[in-house]
């Protein structure tokens, strides 16, 4: 008997074809540009990129901002996911709408709304001065802090939803069993609740981090050209400098980081999941 093709597997064909043409092919062409020069294959562009101090600063800033954004989003999302899992009926709808609606608003609208909040004579500064916490206006707009706060806001749903999905399935009797075995609330959290919700945390963090390292619109609007990120470098290389090899090289670096994050997080998730 000959091996038969699983018919269900055929369902993947349109998706794979689409990905191959629209995603993989252009990406490969881009990568090819980063290593092909007039006289053959060379990694000179990479050497040049990594030896440039400015580029390294941008790379470091991009990673730092992405990490801080992920941490901030996590700190806000984790308790939110628990609140959502307890919410019933209309409250759950309110939560979900509150999560999803801002996504449809678009980053541009949000960014301009924030500038009202953050600017020198904006709401936050007036309030701080009114309470007496600060004497004069504090610079908020165009700072890394504002960028992290804004980015965490935009990516929050991508952190909350995977955690919510895990928390919702958490067996409520497990913390009860732990309590009856003498575990304090703190011990219960660190030994039962946290480990069991970690897969959601890993998934949400991977989403958020990989989106945050490649964000372009948010930093352009909040901090502007002054503090570049990797994506802004890429755009500048292609659009202003017309330096395709440079743009391709930075893209490849960014892609490598993203691939690492995805592979590492799915390995971690599998390891965590293997025992459950």
């Amino acid at each position, binding site marked *: 008997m000959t091996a038969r093709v699983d018919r269900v597997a055929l369902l993947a064909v349109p998706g794979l074809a689409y990905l191959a043409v629209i995603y993989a092919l252009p990406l490969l062409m881009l990568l090819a540009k980063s290593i092909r020069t007039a006289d053959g294959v060379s990694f000179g562009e990479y050497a040049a990129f990594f030896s440039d101090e400015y580029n390294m600063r941008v790379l470091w800033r991009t990673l730092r901002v992405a990490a801080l954004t992920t941490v901030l989003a996590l700190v806000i999302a984790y308790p939110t996911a628990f609140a959502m899992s307890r919410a019933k009926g209309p409250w759950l709808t309110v939560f979900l709408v509150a999560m999803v609606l801002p996504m449809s608003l678009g980053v541009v609208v949000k960014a301009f709304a924030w500038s009202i909040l953050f600017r020198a004579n904006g709401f936050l500064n007036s309030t701080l001065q009114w309470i007496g916490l600060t004497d004069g206006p504090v610079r908020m707009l165009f700072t890394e802090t504002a960028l992290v706060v804004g980015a965490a806001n935009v990516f929050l749903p991508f952190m909350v939803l995977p955690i919510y999905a895990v928390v919702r399935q958490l067996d409520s009797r497990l913390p009860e069993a732990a309590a009856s075995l003498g575990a304090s609330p703190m*011990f219960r959290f660190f030994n039962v609740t946290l480990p069991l919700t970690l897969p959601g945390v890993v998934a949400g963090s991977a989403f958020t981090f990989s989106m945050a390292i490649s964000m372009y619109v948010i930093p352009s609007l909040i901090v502007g050209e002054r503090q570049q990120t990797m994506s802004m470098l890429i755009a500048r290389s292609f659009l202003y400098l017309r330096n395709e090899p440079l743009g391709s090289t930075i893209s490849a670096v960014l892609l490598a980081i993203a691939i690492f994050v995805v592979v590492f997080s799915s390995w971690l998730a599998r390891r965590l999941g293997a025992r459950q």
Partner: protein
Amino acid sequence: MEQGKFPRHYLEAWGIAKSFKGTRVMSDMNFRVERGELVSLLGPSGCGKSTLLRIIAGLLEADEGAVVLGGREITRFPAHKRNVSVVFQNYALFPHLTVAENVAFGLRARGMAKSATGAPVSEALSLVRMTEFADRPISALSGGQQQRVAVARALVVGPDLLLLDEPFSALDRKLRETMQVELKSLLLDRGITAVFVTHDQEEAMGVSDRIAVMNAGRIEQFADPSTLYARPASPFVMDFVGLSTRISGRVVSSDAGTIAVDTAYGRLSARSDVTVGKDVLLGVRPELIAVEAGENTIGVPLTDVMVLGSKTVLHGTARGGDRILCELPGIRGGLKRGDAVTLGWAVDDTLAYEVAP
């Protein structure tokens, strides 16, 4: 505590009331257990068994009342400060931990170093014959094995009280019976005081020293299995603890603790002080009925004869809400559906309950 009331019982839950969203599910519940006793809470679904158990465990707060354990009032103690272990219906084992880590959980929660948990954990595992499974993940265990781990996990901490909420209900009949015997001897050997929730009367009778039969948030009767079976305090208990012949009628005369009752099957007698003119429900355990005339005698056609091996069950034609049921030991041939038979039993074996007309 109530003024001047000294707790004489090991576990005492008294005056317990609980409502969920304005609906009273329990009021003025009093429940006492002595040290070393195995007690069952038996009752139909929704009667409040788990609610009472959770209040004793500290997993649920009562609206009123107090819980005293070993002379200490623990009403306001959170669950983790009560030293009361719970075995849940679906075991609630920690899926991210191995068998041994599950058993060690309570010890570590009490601050024992990980390295010190080895000895007590392996002792607990050998107690439930799960030693070779120590390093397995929970997902690799069968239902019965999970149940054993849950028992080991609950016992290893040396609880003052063990609460079990339908611990066997997820197991098949054969395994359930094995586990009942195992658990009972384990608890008796170690002198553990345990409260055991079930809605299976045979399980309750087999496992416990005393049974509290619950109905709609109240304890109808709290007694040892034989009393409960032979002298049920109410028609509810009579029906919940085994099946019986039930015949309703009206008292027509009363003399020195013996009443005569007019029924659809003729006049029957019972020991009771229900007064003349009242409606009563008479009950007889089926194995106390013989196929011959007795002090009480009725004649009925049989609607069914079931030969079950260890016993033969006869169903008689019943009128109204009555039920005629007779159990004979062993295999009894010669009787078949449609035969008119004479059934008889003793007056002393006849239960009588006054009922609203």
